[in-house]
């Protein structure tokens, strides 16, 4: 997709290594852009190595992992410590959202484990409003 980006370090949007869904990423790209942030959209099926390398290279203001295929939990728990292990990404805001497991239950336990793995915030599939609010706040933080 065409992208004319505002300047500055980007919001990195990425699918997980096993998730081939695209529309969630296209939508998030438009939404994040409309809220005034430059976007680097890595697309679907992003291998862990590529995600870590691109984040280390661009120093993102926020990393958004979006996943809807039901394997998101397992993929995310694996990759988050790898991101956190990079010194330059240790303090980067890292969030994940979407459909995180193939069973709806056990969400709270999943959330705790994702946070323990290194995520700052876990958005369940119904929490996009909260995500947009957090993005709007992030913008204020950057502007001031």
């Amino acid at each position, binding site marked *: 997709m065409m992208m004319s980006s505002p300047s500055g370090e980007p919001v990195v949007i990425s699918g997980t290594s096993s998730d081939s869904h695209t*529309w969630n990423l*296209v939508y998030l790209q438009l939404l994040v852009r409309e809220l005034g942030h430059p976007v680097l959209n890595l697309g679907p099926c992003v291998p862990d190595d590529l995600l870590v390398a691109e984040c280390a290279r661009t120093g993102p203001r926020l990393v958004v992992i979006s996943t809807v295929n039901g394997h998101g939990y397992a993929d995310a728990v694996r990759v988050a410590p790898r991101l956190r292990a990079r010194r330059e990404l240790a303090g980067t805001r890292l969030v994940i959202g979407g459909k995180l497991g*193939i069973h709806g239950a056990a969400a709270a336990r999943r959330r705790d484990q994702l946070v323990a793995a290194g995520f700052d915030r876990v958005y369940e599939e119904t929490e996009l409003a909260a995500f947009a609010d957090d993005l709007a706040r992030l913008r204020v933080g950057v502007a001031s």
Partner: protein
Amino acid sequence: MTAGFGGFVARARAAGRLVVQPRMGFSDTATMRAGLLATKRVPATTVGTLTLDSYTRVNDIAAADHALAEGIPLNGYPIVSYGPERTATVLDGIRDAGFPVQVRHGSARPQDIVRASLAAGLDATEGGPVSYCLPYSRMPLTDAVRNWSHTADILATAPNAHVETFGGCMLGQLCPPSMLVALSVLEGLFFVQHGLRSVSLSYAQQVDAEQDEEAVHALRRLAADLLPGVDWHVVVYTYMGLYPTTPHGAAALLESSARLAVRSGAARLIVKTAAEARRIPTIAENVDALTLAAEVAAATRWADDEPDAADTTVHTEARAIVTAVLGLAHTVAEALPAAFRLGYLDVPYCLHPDNAGRATSEIDPTGRLRWAATGSLPFRARPAAAGRGPTSAGLLAALSHTQRRFDGLPATAGAADRPVLGAQMTITTPGPTSTYLPPSPPEHLASPVTRAALRVQQQVLTAARSFLAGDGFIELLPPVIGPVTDPGVRGSKQLDVDYYGHRYKLMTSGILYKQASLLAFDKLFFIAPNVRAEPVETCNTRRHLAEFHQIDVEISGGTRADARRLAERLLVHVVRHVLRTAGDDLAALGRDPVVFAELLREPFDVLTHAEAVAALHDLQYPQSTDAEIEWEGEELLSHKARRPFFVTDYPKGSRGFYDRENPESPGTLRNFDLIVPGGYGELVSGSERESDYATIVTRMRETGENPAKYRWYLDMVRDGIPASAGFGMGLERLTRFLTGLDSVWQVNAYPKVPGLVAP
């Protein structure tokens, strides 16, 4: 006739039976076996499916093995991990000449999958060098072409191998049919050039039934020309985009896909289930879907054996693409990467690095999928929306177009009403508490969304003026300041200006001047700017601006019914005019004209305030019986509504002194609001006016106003003004409703959101 999968389908087609097939894959072998058996037992002509899990698809066999070892369920059948013996036990006694089984996966590097499949005797699969690379993988296209060339060579060693192209799906939705047809044909030709003799060409149902039929006919015509001597058939996929969430909507969409398949001369249909929007469907849900699809197919008349030779837009564009691509090289394998580099092939919204991303698509006002920008495609579409990129809201509206249509919902509603998007996407838009606010003025003014909205607003103004002038109304230019103004309600404050040492007010509404102007004209209107310092809490309602405009109308001697009827006619006229003149802008904003169909059928329903309160109580909303209906309550009713409706007879305390009290029902006012559906809320507020001096003074005192401040107005009323009725229609709210935008600030060039300091 060919043996194997292709031969089975050809025999069913010759017998006039549509083959129906599920998408079904389970990681547990017993469940997988039960699913195949249940599919076989459906009273219809079925074929079985093994859909693989997503670890296997990306060749992460270690992850699939690990999940199996840990007992973590996978989202499909891990054929490589299980190996041929295990898979043979799953198929044993089920797969036979009368029940072929196909492997469905989605891999851009499927050699191991195909080897594992062939080892288990499974020689039917699906995929393609483009369709399993671009949407689902980061692999360079040239690598995917090499992998699929290798895979096709492996498959071609099996005597009855069959491959189905997945090129007719491409991201599931919003890819224009001509590109789907072209890619499906090109992938089919790719397989044939690698020695396969039996292929099927897919086409995924899109948004318009007639256009889809044209597409399948075009696909059959191109296949007949380009695949002579090859066993081929067309397979239709039931809608692959966001699926309806209601059982009736899901069933209706499935039924329409079965009719599409039969009417257009396809031979096979891959179904979706009622559970599709929420989760992986059960075996029973798959059986239900197969049964229903077969029943509908049996009751539908088949297309002629020869494809329709009409030169439809789909056919013309698809043929232009295929011809241009084939002209690039001797083989499809060589031509495909070049075609993507040149932008002859370009898939809208596809994020793959090898996709040009210059072509975009949209749903046009008639509900067809069309090119919005054609980039370097080898044909020119009519310039539709050049330069206007999609917005997130517009994208969601287009993505949920079919879902909403089949669920019987307005095509786009207020954001709070947006569906939880199904398993394809599973996200919702910001709710009503989102702090989504205007960007900087230059960014806002330059935004294609703002420009489209303002063009729509221009048509609103043109339509309103010509309608009212045609009805004998005189447009007067409203004053901006005065010693007093409409005292208003709902907590908004007036703003002062220093006028030669006098404290004057900016107009909160033109009501006092409208009544005065009746001394000059019987029928008049303003297009009036109003300023109300609304409470800061309203900055999130999405429908409040501190500075806004009203189409403010007054009729001398009119009754409430006259004013209501006029508001209704005005709204219908404006909507008709905008649909006629601003269709491209609405389409670019993702607004589906279908939402206005109910509105255009006047008259609107009428509820009294008491009935509206009762309706809210039924919805467990704590609305006071003797007060203004609160924002949230009004929005709730608006969401529940299918068409606009009036609320009449508000209690006396809730509105200004100029709204006439009902002599037959003291305590209620002869007034009305017009609420539009979809969560957009109140659009019009009006009433029969009080014109009696003593009553006005009394009412002023009751509402806490000091009559002494209103001296010029009361002097005039004492000398006599005509009785009247009138209303104000919010211009920005109307434009927001027409454009379907999230917030009213998006339709104002210089938005002042309550509480925010803005230029």
